[in-house]
């Protein structure tokens, strides 16, 4: 997070639960933080169960904050939520995010890659002052991880393109998607 330019205003969309640690970290810069907790709001089920087409588009639109053309989003934290979405649901969500983002905006996501299993419920990630993340979520039963490939994710990222991907030592893959300047 150290790279956020403190002289410029940033609009951040957090799709996880609010945490004081995250606010403290973002508070170092000039930020407006939009929080839409897709886990506790039932948003994941809503997206996964919606019929592809208008119903899914509507579901994604209704879950996200209203469009702010004068204050568009430039950084999005998805945490590990994409693992719990179908690719169609992910695509609808990314398209809806794209409608609210400015060109060059970034979406951060963590994908289970090396391990075949993942927790049944998404994690609750809290940053430390050192820029590391701790999963403070309650432990739940394990379920098969979809282990989405970069290609599948890229094809389901709507107007976003993969900007960077790196494998972490815990077996997760960290992705950064960038909103195409010409989207």
């Amino acid at each position: 997070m150290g790279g956020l330019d403190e002289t410029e205003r940033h609009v951040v969309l957090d799709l996880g639960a609010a945490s004081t640690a995250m606010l403290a970290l973002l508070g170092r810069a000039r930020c407006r933080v939009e929080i839409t907790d897709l886990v506790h709001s039932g948003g994941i089920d809503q997206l996964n169960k919606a019929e592809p087409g208008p119903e899914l588009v509507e579901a994604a639109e209704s879950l996200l904050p209203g469009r702010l053309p004068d204050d568009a989003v430039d950084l999005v934290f998805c945490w590990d939520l994409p693992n719990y979405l179908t690719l169609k649901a992910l695509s609808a969500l990314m398209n809806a995010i794209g409608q609210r983002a400015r060109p060059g905006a970034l979406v951060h996501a963590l994908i289970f890659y090396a391990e075949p299993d993942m927790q049944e419920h998404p994690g609750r990630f809290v940053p430390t002052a050192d820029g590391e993340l701790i999963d403070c979520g309650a432990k739940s039963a394990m379920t098969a991880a979809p282990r989405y490939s970069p290609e599948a994710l890229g094809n389901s990222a709507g107007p976003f393109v993969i900007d960077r991907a790196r494998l972490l030592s815990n077996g997760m893959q960290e992705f950064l998607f960038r909103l195409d300047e010409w989207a």
Partner: protein
Amino acid sequence: MFERGKKDGDTIESQEANRTKSDVSFESVRPKATPRGGDAAVIGRSIQINGDLRGDEDLRIEGDVSGTVELRNSALTIGKEGKVKAGVYAKSIAVDGETKGDLYATERVSVHVNARVQGNIIAPRVSIEEGAHFKGSIEMDSAAIEKALGKTTASGAAKPVARTTASTAGSNKAVPKDAARSTGASVNPPAKTA
């Protein structure tokens, strides 16, 4: 019998001794000791207020309030039983109950565990405990906060929704420079690039 701030211990003790059952019932409306809010005035659980609420002393809300709440120089606590559907302006705001509307504070907003908050928070310092439910935005851009709070103060009342107000404060062309590096967070245990 229910004077606030009376410090004569003997007097209070004798009042305790003479207290009748009907006296005790008042305790449920105004708790003797409030963990947050101290010696604040209290809107009890059975009270419903629909309209503008203004004052210059600390207040604890345990009832239902709709409209606007303005405590320019004081602290507001929304207790566990409190339900506030209003634009709120205060020096500091602590939420244990439910709010729907924008919260403006010149000093701090604290959202405690099990609280439910829907709306925008505009304050220099914000804390949200784990287990609290929050949906909305948090304005932490000092320029936007000053603008929003100034506008609210100037108007003499807390006007809900700072969304558009805040949006005009900053650069509309801000793109995080190299924010990709900024999000290079690792997952515990400390992860290293393979």
